[in-house]
Each structure stands twice: as C-alpha cells, then as structure tokens.
C-alpha cells in the first residue's frame, strides 16, 4: 500500500479512469457519426415545416429562398430578435409573397409564428403557429388552421392591428376579434404582429427588396 502513495499521480489517474476515458471517446465518435448522418435530415425537417406552413398561406408559392440581410427587430426591454425574411416564388420564379418567423410571449410560453404577406407587403396572407404552449380549449384555438381567429388575418392590411372583444370576425380589416376566454393569447398574437410587421417592412424597403 505504501508504494501506491509514491506512485506517479498521472499513472494513478489513468489506472482509475481509463474506462471512462475510453468510453467517452467511443461514445463521442458514435454520436459524431450519427449526428453527421442525421443532421441534413434534421435541417431539412425544419425547412419542410416552414415551407409547409408558409406554403399553406401563400398557395401559389413553390419555394422559399432567403432574401436580403437578416433584420434585427427591437422587441422591447432592450432585446432584439433577428428575422430572416424569405421570398416565396412560384414555379416560374416570380415573386408571390414574403414569409418570416417571429415570436412573442403568450399566456404560458413563447408563441412562434410564421407570418406571410403578399408580394407588395401590403396585405397579410395570414399566419401559422410553429410552436406554442397555450391553454387547451382556449388559447390553443390560435393554432387551428383556417379557424375563426386565423382567418381574420387573411387579407388584413399591414398596419397597426387592434384587438377588440366586440365586433364582426367576418369583416377583414385591422380590427381582430379576440378568442373569448383567451384574451391574453389573442393579445399576444396581435402584439407580435405589431412588433414585427412595420419594422420589417421599413427594413426591407431600406434593403431595396420592396
């Protein structure tokens, strides 16, 4: 036993932990291989999801490409959110609209939206929900495709939107009727639009995209 105490510390360390080190290296290699094999698929999934949502909003669009520089939008409290606007083109390559991802704070968690507009950035083509965690039965009604809430945004003008409790949901204008029982969620979506729409339009005009 007394020999061990005078043993080389590095040798002692290796004796004790060789198994850990070897398995760490092996497992690391395993993960690296798997990740290399699956990463393209994962990236493709994300693009597919965006395209499916944005394509559902802009029905003529066949593909989406990055357009211009990424735009950083001030989301209050000194924070900014970086938006990459994508250009939707039809089969012939003509511009049919714009789409981008943005987010705001909902009732329970962040709500991530895909917002699409027409080619002139004058009218909304609607929004889709990338991720949200709103109350089932109330706030999660914003995720219903072509539901009462989502359809109010189809064709609405790109200006400051306003949330009302009373009103006609059928009329398409800048007044959005709240989901009854889910005022916070309805407000969050409208606020997200108001935070992102006009600054992005301005920045796009500066970049010469519009």
């Amino acid at each position, binding site marked *: 036993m007394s020999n061990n105490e005078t043993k080389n510390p590095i040798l002692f360390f290796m004796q*004790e932990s060789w198994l*850990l080190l070897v*398995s760490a290296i092996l*497992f690391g290699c395993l*993960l690296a291989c798997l*990740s290399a094999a699956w990463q393209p698929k994962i990236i493709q*999934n994300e693009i597919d*999801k965006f395209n499916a949502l944005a394509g559902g909003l802009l029905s003529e669009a066949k593909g989406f490409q990055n357009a211009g520089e990424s735009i950083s939008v001030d989301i209050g409290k000194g924070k900014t959110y970086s938006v990459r606007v994508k250009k939707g083109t039809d089969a012939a390559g003509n511009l049919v609209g714009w789409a981008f991802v943005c987010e705001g704070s909902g009732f329970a968690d962040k709500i991530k939206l895909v917002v699409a507009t027409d080619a002139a950035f004058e009218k909304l083509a609607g929004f889709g929900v990338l991720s949200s965690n709103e109350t*089932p039965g109330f706030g999660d009604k914003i995720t219903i495709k072509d539901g009462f809430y989502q359809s109010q945004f189809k064709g609405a003008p790109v200006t400051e939107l306003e949330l009302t409790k009373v009103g006609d949901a059928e009329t398409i204008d800048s007044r959005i009727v709240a989901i009854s029982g889910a005022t916070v969620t309805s407000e969050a979506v409208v606020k997200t639009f108001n935070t992102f729409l006009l600054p992005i339009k301005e920045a796009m005009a500066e970049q010469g995209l519009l």
Partner: protein
Amino acid sequence: MVLGSGFYVLSFHENDKLNISKGLNKMSKDVSLGKTFFAGIWDSNPVLRLLLGMCPTLAVTAAVKPALTMGLSVVFVLLFSNIVVSLLRHQLKPHLRILMFTLTIATAVTIADLYLKAFMPEMSASLGPYIPLIIVNCIIIGRAEACASKNGLIVSIIDALGMGAGFTITLCVLAAIREVLATGNIFEITVMPGSFTPWAAMGMPVGAFITLGLILGAVNIISKKTA
C-alpha cells in the same frame, strides 16, 4: 491505496442502501427471467410502485401518442444503458461508477433525441425538453445501479425490457384516460359521442396529478387485496 479502499467500502455500503424496494432485493437473488420481466410491470413497476420518473409521467401524458413515444424512448435508453453497464460491470471502479452510468445514459438519450428530431420531427417538437430530460430520469440510473451492475447480460436485458414495458404501459394508461376526457379522442381517434364536452382541465397539469393519484390509490387497493 488507503483512500481508494475507503471509497470501496463506503460505496458498497451505499449499494445496499439503494436497494430500498423489496422487489429490487428479490431480483438479484432470483434469476428466473419471467419473474424479472413481470416484476417491472407490476411488483416493482417504476411509476406505480417505486414512484420513479414522475416528471415525464406528469408532463407528457396529455395524449397517448407522445406518451407512447416517451415510453419507447425510455425503453431504448434503458436497454442501451443496461447492456453497456452489464458488459462493463467487472471493469467498473466503484467510486467512478455513477460517472460511467451518466456517460452511458447521456449517450443513449442523445441518440434517441437525434433520432426523433430526424424521423419524427412533430413528436420531437411536442415532447420538447422531456426527451433530453430522460438523462436525469431516476429509473434508468436506478436500474443500472440495482440490476445491471450486478447481473449478467441476459438478466439485464430482460430487466430493462420489463421495467421499460411497465413504464410505457403506465404512461399509456394514464394518457388514455386523460386524452379521452380532455379531447374525446384516444390516439387521435374520436371515441366519445359528439355531444361530449371536453374536460379541458384533464389536459392540464391538474388532470395529470389527479389521474395519477387515483391510479396509485387503485393500484394500492388491488395489491393489498391480492397480497
């Protein structure tokens, strides 16, 4: 090696203490494979009898589909970690064994997470952080410690399958009850009549706590009667 041997004694002492449940102690002596498998499903069901892995049990059981995905992911991770730990059990340094377990489990969980992201992106998005959180699920490290580090490969595999099955079945039962009441569907197929008004609360955390509590109570009553 005074320090080393000190740890040695201490850690084996700990090992004994960790075998808190009756089911666990029985297991290492009795090597009947059938019993090992069914122990995981009833006698020492990880959720209902050992109350391990409560976080996914409460968090992902709003519907059967995510619950099943979670259950199968845990089966995979459990199998992977039990196999690796069982194979390396003679090489394990007792005072470094937890590090080794964690390394193995983390690898398996990362594989499961990548797989879901690549091939089931929607499920992966809806399970969110709960797949990576399997790393800290006590069931897996508990089985590595109590079974795989002391038993041979076959026993460890059967144990992983039994425990995994117990976990998956429990999650699915809990999720089925909650999904029916919260949405009127099971596995996204409508089963309730059209006039049924969904109980939204059952899809919220409160529904998970109440349903789990009632199931635990029922299981206790049944096992008291059959004991």
